[in-house]
Every structure is written in structure tokens, then in C-alpha cells.
């Protein structure tokens, strides 16, 4: 009898939160999906059914095509640098024991800052007429950073020029500065988890330090790399505040992303149905990464 009363209490403990999640996550996503299929592109709600009109409009839209291109290149560069820098620094810290905690703290502190603060500061550091350009001037280079409208290796695709938008590199630098701490912390935790006996055994077998890293340690860090890729990918697909604070959508939308477009078209332009459609596309992109990851890691845990 007692056990069942306890079981009931357990369910009552969990129920409020679960109900909130069901309504405010799943219910609201459903409602956003419904809005995205409506004609509500004015200040006054108009929920008449529009079919896929808003989606068709977006995929033909110059700005949204530019957003997708920017997201692709931002995601690749951002994840690549966060992993290389985080792993490299973690290995360096693994080898140099002295002053480790000081260095780790320096690499990690940007994680405690807001993307808005990062945006405000880097906006000045990468401003073409000041900041780093005053040092680069000595070498005769003056990059235009986030004001550059060039598309590297571009070719016409749809209504946009598809290629790497040079302006995005400035945003990548700021984002990498902020988020490298995450991958570093993950890799440091992973490296401390590798027992010393394993390295000793490899050394006794005559492996060089480089071989130990390549053959023993890096393969053991693969699950961590997977986690970092997934977490960074979902951050990069959702990114809004950094770009909104640092550059805005930029000339020719060279630094625009779906998050910024959704915000501006919905809350500045009152195109609610279009904004909802952008949000649903963002959700689907994130879900492609997150759902398999969640299912996989839950299965491994239980």
C-alpha cells in the first residue's frame, strides 16, 4: 500500500513540469507550425489556411537563400575551429602541467559572457577602420571584415551567389573566441579520464608520443568529438544574439542568418506566418542533429 502511495507522490512531483513541457514545448511548436500554414502576415491575426505558401515564398526568397548559405559556411567553419583549437589546447595543457589552471581559466572565461557582450566588443575589434586592422596595417593588409560583401568561390545558385561570404569569417572569429572553452573543457575532461596505465603500456610497447596520441588517445576521444559537434551544430543553427549585436544582417545579407530574419520579419515586420515558417525550418534543421543524438545517448545511458 505504502509503495503505491509513494509511486503516486513521485508522479505528482513530476507532473507539473511534464505538463509545462508538453504545453509550452510540444503544444507551442504545434501552434507555430499551424501559424506557418496560415495567412497571418499582418498585425491582426488571420488564421485562414494558406497551405505551404509561406514555405514556397521563403525558398524562393533572396534573403532566405542567403541565410541558408551563411548558415552552412558559418556552421562548418565554427565547428571546425572550435574542435581544432579546443583539442589542440587540451593536448597542450595535457603535456605542460605548470600553470594549467590559469591557462584553462583564461580560455574558458568567454563562456561566462553573453553573446551580446561578445558582439559589442568584437564589433569594434574587427571594425575595418580600427581594432586589429591597426596592427595589420604594418603588413599592408586591411581586411574589410564584416563589411566585406565578397563571396569567395561564388557561383550563381537560385537567386544568390553561393560561396563563402567573407564577412562571415569575422563572425566566426568572435563565435570561436566565445565557444572554444566548451570543447576545451570537454576534451580536458576526456583526457583526464584516460588512465595513465594505458599510455604507459603503449610506451612500453615502443610507441612514440605522437603515436600514442594518434593511435590510443584520439580514438578514445571520438565520442567527445561527436558530442561537441552536435552541441556546436545546434548552437550555430540557432544563432541569433551574437550576429544581431555584432553585425546585423549586413549589406546584401552577407551576415544574415535565419534567427535574425525570423526576429525581424516577425516582430519588426509583422509577417507572423513567414516568421513561423522560418522557425519551423530552424527546428527541423536542429532536430536532424539532436533527435538521433538524444535517442542514442539515452539508449547508451540506461
Amino acid at each position, binding site marked *: 500500500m505504502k509503495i503505491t502511495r509513494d509511486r503516486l507522490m513521485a508522479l505528482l512531483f513530476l507532473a507539473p*513540469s511534464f505538463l509545462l513541457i508538453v504545453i509550452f514545448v510540444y503544444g507551442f511548436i504545434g501552434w507555430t507550425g499551424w501559424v506557418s500554414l496560415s495567412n497571418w502576415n499582418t498585425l491582426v491575426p488571420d488564421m485562414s489556411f494558406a497551405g505551404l505558401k509561406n514555405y514556397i515564398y521563403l525558398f524562393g526568397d533572396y534573403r532566405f537563400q542567403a541565410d541558408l548559405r551563411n548558415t552552412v559556411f558559418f556552421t562548418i567553419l565554427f565547428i571546425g575551429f572550435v574542435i581544432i583549437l579546443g583539442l589542440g589546447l587540451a593536448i597542450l595543457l595535457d603535456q605542460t602541467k605548470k600553470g594549467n589552471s590559469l591557462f584553462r581559466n583564461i580560455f574558458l572565461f568567454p563562456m561566462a559572457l553573453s553573446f551580446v*557582450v561578445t558582439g559589442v566588443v568584437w564589433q569594434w575589434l574587427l571594425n575595418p577602420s580600427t581594432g586589429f586592422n591597426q596592427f595589420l596595417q604594418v603588413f599592408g593588409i586591411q581586411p574589410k571584415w564584416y563589411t566585406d560583401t565578397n563571396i569567395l568561390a561564388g557561383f550563381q545558385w537560385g537567386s544568390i551567389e553561393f560561396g563563402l561570404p567573407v564577412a562571415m569569417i569575422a563572425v566566426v572569429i568572435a563565435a570561436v573566441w566565445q565557444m572554444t572553452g566548451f570543447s576545451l573543457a570537454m576534451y580536458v575532461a576526456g583526457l583526464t579520464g584516460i588512465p595513465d596505465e594505458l599510455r604507459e603500456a603503449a610506451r612500453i610497447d615502443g610507441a612514440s608520443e605522437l603515436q600514442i596520441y594518434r593511435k590510443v588517445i584520439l580514438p578514445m576521444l571520438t565520442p567527445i568529438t561527436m558530442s561537441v559537434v552536435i552541441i556546436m551544430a545546434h548552437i550555430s543553427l540557432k544563432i541569433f544574439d551574437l550576429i544581431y549585436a555584432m553585425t546585423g544582417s549586413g549589406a546584401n545579407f552577407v551576415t544574415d542568418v535565419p534567427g535574425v530574419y525570423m526576429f525581424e520579419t516577425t516582430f519588426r515586420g509583422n509577417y507572423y506566418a513567414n516568421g513561423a515558417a522560418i522557425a519551423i525550418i530552424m527546428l527541423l534543421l*536542429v532536430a536532424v542533429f539532436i533527435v538521433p543524438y538524444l535517442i542514442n545517448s539515452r539508449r547508451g545511458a540506461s
Partner: protein
Amino acid sequence: MVVRKIAKYAVLIAIALFFLTPVCVMLITSFKPLDEVSLSEMWSLPSAIDFSSYTHAFSELAPNLMNSLYLVIPATLLSAILGAMNGYVLSKWRFKGSEVVFTMILFGMFIPYQSILIPLIQFLNSINLYNSIIGLIFTHVVYGLPITTLMFRNFYANIPDSMIEAAQVDGASFLGIFRQIILPLSITGFVVVAIWQFTNIWNEFLFAVTITNNNAQPVMVALQNLSGSQIVQWNVQMAGALLAAMPTLLVYILLGKYFVRGLLAGSVKG
């Protein structure tokens, strides 16, 4: 061997300098008097320490700093308490389907909040909480549930089940075990979760900028407005950025160890 060691430190120091540069520029600029603030003199030190940019930035941001404080304290506490309750059930009182419930809750952590923003604003509007700090508190509690639940669940998973079983044999109930065994062991868990939520809610921007305008705005929105305004000098912007970042930066400096634990807990497996 020595050469390689020096080379390693050289690389570390170079990258550390790169990481510190933005903070140095913020500090240098924010202490400059107005007549030394020019684009060509960004890197030169101020001739004298001048606090006028701080007084200016503070007068602009003070009401918003208070808003952020009123927002972050209740939101952190409430989401931590709910997270502890959920974590207790999901780790020690599993039932058929509890893993599915947990995974469903977790998914809420990863969604782009744009995908719930339009209904959320309609909802807050209908209960008269739009443009209010209470509405923002409610929002942060709800969407903070996944991460706080995850953190507490992983934290409680480390408490041996045998302790719970022994207490049950002694006749302790569900609530008794929570109060007398789980909560006293949860202090570290609460510190980690509270620091994480404090940092996240303080730094959050999307909810803040869409749910509030003018007098209810948290500090990050006010900072963004300050930096977007053409008439505000950038020494004031830098001082403002530093003021807005100060609370989370202090928490990191004082309690960095717990912050990193929260960071690692966010990767699902913990």
C-alpha cells in the same frame, strides 16, 4: 626537450593573449576620457584613469541591471527547485515510460526558441504578463526545466540506490527520503545548477528582447540598444559591456570550478 617545452608555452601564451585582448580593449577604452577616444588610438593607454564612461553607462543601465536582478534570482531558484524534484523522480523513482518522459523533457533544451516564440507571446499577452518581468521569469523557469532536470538527474544518479532502499526499510516515505536524504546531499548540485541558470538567464537575449520593451527590459537588451545608438561614444559602450558582464564574470572568477561542472553536464551524458 627544453626547447619543445618553451615552444609549447609560447603557443599557449600567444593564444591566451588573443583570448584576453577583448577584455583589455574593454578596460583600456572604458577608462579613457572622452577626448582620447578615437578610432586611431584604440590601443593606446589612457593618459589618466577616468570614470566618466562608467558613470554615464551606469546611469543608462542601472534600471535594467535591477530588472535583470529581479528576473534572475526568482527564475534561478524556481527552476532549480523544480529540476531537483524532477531529477529525484527520474533517477530514484523510475517508472514504466520514465525514460521517454525524460527524453521528451530533454528535447526542450535544444529547440530554437524562435519555434515557440509567437504562441508564447500570444499566451503571455492573454494573461497580461507580456512586457513584464514576471512573464520573463515564468518563461525562463519553463524553458530552464530541461537543463535543470538533466543536471539533477545525473547528480542524483551518483547517490547509491542502497541508501534509498535502506531508508524505505526504515519506513521513510517518498517525501521523507527527499527531505532527509536527498536534499542534504544536494548542496553541490544546487550550486552547480544555480550558477549555470544564473549565467544563462543573465546573458539571455532572445526572450528578453521579444517579451519586454522599455521599462521591463533586462540589461542585455539595454546594452544592445546602447551599442546600436549612434550618439553614444564607444568608451561608454565598452564600460556598459563590462558592467553588464560583471555579475557573471565575478561568478566565474569566484566559482569557476562549479561553472565548468555545469558546462560539462550540459552535454546530456554528464
